[in-house]
């Protein structure tokens, strides 16, 4: 009795704050205990694109019903997928059974020795099921490490040049005759007058700038520039890269510059496209749907053509962006996950919808005969753009899957910036004259990447192996 009285006395002495906390604790506890947990599916699938999710939903529903399985699809941002996936891989914790990974994030999943990669190696399975030969070969490169494939490619993303045909045709210029960048710029020179006296040409031939890392990478890939060997050694400081860097920077400097920096994503950038500030735009297949959505005013004014090459006979396309579907090693249901992966990434229905909804070409070559790709597109003056992109698809350049690629690409962008500053400071605007400085800057980038890699005991082994190979 005495003890109880003492306890009550002790409790009475507590402040009201303690009582508030205690009450909240009890209420929360009750709410947590009585809350019915949501019915979880048998498998989990993380997707970063709501458009993709919308396309997959009916197929998944149908498959679930016929197989008695339930796949839960969760849409989350690329950053959220990145952090959850990497936390899971680093901590050895379960993630999802299927993860759609964007190109910029995937290399992080490929860090370390091949057998420590968090995704299942799909190579043997792809071979056994004959899928490897059905897929567009270059589209596998960003998801491959040491010849092993860790993800099913979602797309090809070949690149063409979208140009303001309304303006060029009105001026009597047939741009399709331009086979090289040099010819392209020469043909458009007459449109660069400043009739409105605003101290800038009324039309500039190309929307590109030396600060746009993605476009620099796209153009360097087009010209066979290479930052890493397929086995991951950095080969940044080479003459070809220097030539390409000097060439594309020379487009942006000097009084006769032929490129202009139009923001690819902002409203003001879209308005500048409508105003015809630039004639040509580097356009991967997915960019077509972005334009249709954000710049509807250009419908019937644009046409597509293969990219002009750096040299006669050179490559007329490139590649930009990409997505893969991976199956983490932590999944308990690999076979079911693999079934879903094939259903979503190789089915003709999804491929068709992928093209109709977001203008993306499937990497499955056997699906390229689908009539959907022959449909004329009114946005691009009724060109059969699907077929045009498909014709270029096998030509897209290979891309490295090195985890150091992202930082190396940023360093190359910085080199481009430094080269442009050098050009402006010294009034050197000719590509050939910029090459020595480009080589010096790329040497610096190479040293920086090597230093970064050598700092890492594991990557340093690769680096040393590369030296050995070189010798």
């Amino acid at each position, binding site marked *: 009795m*005495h*003890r109880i009285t*003492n*306890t009550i*006395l*002790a409790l009475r002495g507590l402040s009201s704050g*303690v009582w508030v*906390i205690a009450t909240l*604790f009890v209420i929360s506890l009750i709410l947590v205990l009585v809350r019915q947990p949501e019915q979880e599916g048998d498998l989990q699938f993380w997707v970063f694109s709501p458009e993709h999710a919308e396309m997959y939903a009916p197929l998944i529903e149908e498959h679930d019903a016929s197989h008695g399985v339930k796949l839960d699809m969760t849409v989350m941002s690329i950053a959220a997928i*990145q*952090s959850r996936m*990497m936390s899971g*891989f*680093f901590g*050895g914790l379960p993630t999802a059974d299927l993860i759609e990974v964007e190109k910029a994030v995937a290399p*992080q999943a*490929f*860090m*370390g*020795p091949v057998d*420590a*990669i*968090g995704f299942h190696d799909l190579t043997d399975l792809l071979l056994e099921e004959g899928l490897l030969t059905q897929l567009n070969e270059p589209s596998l490169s960003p998801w491959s490490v040491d010849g092993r494939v860790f993800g099913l490619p979602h797309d090809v993303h070949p690149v063409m040049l979208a140009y303001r045909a309304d303006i060029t045709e009105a001026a009597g210029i047939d741009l399709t005759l331009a086979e090289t960048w040099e010819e392209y710029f020469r043909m458009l020179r007459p449109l660069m007058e400043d009739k409105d006296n605003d*101290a800038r040409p009324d039309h500039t031939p190309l929307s590109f700038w030396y*600060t746009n*890392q993605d476009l620099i990478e796209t153009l360097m890939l087009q010209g066979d520039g290479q930052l890493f060997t397929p086995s991951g050694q950095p080969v940044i400081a080479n003459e070809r890269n220097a030539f390409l860097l000097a060439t594309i920077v020379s487009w942006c400097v000097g009084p006769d510059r032929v490129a202009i*920096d139009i*923001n690819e994503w*902002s409203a*003001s950038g879209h*308005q*500048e496209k409508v105003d015809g500030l630039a004639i040509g735009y580097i356009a991967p297949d997915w960019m077509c749907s972005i334009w249709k959505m954000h710049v509807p005013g250009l419908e019937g004014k644009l046409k597509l053509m293969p990219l002009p090459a750096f040299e006669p006979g050179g490559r007329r396309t490139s590649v930009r962006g990409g997505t893969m579907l991976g199956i983490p090693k932590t999944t308990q249901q690999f076979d079911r996950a693999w079934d879903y992966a094939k259903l979503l990434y190789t089915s003709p229905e999804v491929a068709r919808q992928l093209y109709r909804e977001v203008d993306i070409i499937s990497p499955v070559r056997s699906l390229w005969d689908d009539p959907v790709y022959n449909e004329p597109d009114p946005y691009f003056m009724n060109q059969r753009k699907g077929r045009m992109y498909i014709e270029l698809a096998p030509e897209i350049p290979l891309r490295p899957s090195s*985890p*150091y690629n*992202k*930082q190396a690409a*940023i360093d190359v*962008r*910085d080199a481009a*910036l*430094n080269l442009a500053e050098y050009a*402006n400071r010294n009034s050197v605007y000719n590509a050939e004259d910029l090459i020595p400085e480009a080589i010096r800057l790329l040497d610096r980038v190479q040293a*920086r990447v090597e230093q*970064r890699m050598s*700092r*890492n*005991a*594991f*990557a340093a082994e690769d680096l040393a192996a590369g030296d050995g190979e070189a010798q």
Partner: protein
Amino acid sequence: MSTGGVDSRRVVFSWVMLAPFLVLFLVFVVYPLIQSAFLAANQTFGPGTRTFVGTKNFELLISDPVFWKAIRNTFIYALGSLFVQLPIAFLLALALNSPKLRGRGIYRLIFFSPQLMGLVFVSILGALAFEKRAGLINQALDAAGINDLLVWVTGNDAWLEPDWLQQHVMATLILISLWLYVGFNMIYFLAALQSVDKSLLEAAEIDGAGPWGKLRHVIFPSVKPVATFVILLSMIGSLQLFELPYILLESSGGPDNKGLTIVMYLYQNGFDLGDLGFASAIGWVLALILIGLALVQVKLTRAQEVNA
């Protein structure tokens, strides 16, 4: 005996009440701290690869020019906060503390409102405002003829359409952060100004002190403790700068790493390159800098208390 019983029960009860905090503190602060100290002496590269390297990460850090660039950028921003942001916040607080000013409440809300919008929103609006051709800033500079003036003074055509986020990264970050933080710091100064002893001000006035005299001899000494706190808070926040440049510079350090901060460099190494050990070493260096700053603040506060 019974008193002792009550006391021991009180002790047990206190620990029970503290337990939720302690558990969270141990799991989310102490354990990561120990783990990061351990990681700083290791190198990692993807899952399942770790090797002990001792102090090598710190040695590499000291000889890493990019790290020093990040330190330099971060301190430029911190100094910008200290010498631009805080004086403006103080001046605004002084203006809004004046009883002659009508609609003070509205002004306070206006100046504080960027804080309510959040950093991401402010960053995106900032990026739009500083756009090269269509941005509000360049349009305004152009309309006022300042661009032409700058071209004439510097002889540099780039001032015709300054690309703020490419050419003047840190200046742009400081300017955008003014919008975000001036109102926030102003609230602290305003609270301090409102607690200045009125009788001291009256006494100073009777002694013939003018506005500057009152400011110097009454207001400054009165708001000094709050100012010290705001300076420390601002410095710590500045040294941890991450989200603003991360959003504005599209997750990179900006052209030529002109906008790379210490925390961004930590993030790049830890999450882009998978070198959690090197990232931990960066984190520890930053922690040491912050601890140093906190010690200076403690010393200053004690000195103020002694003087008082």
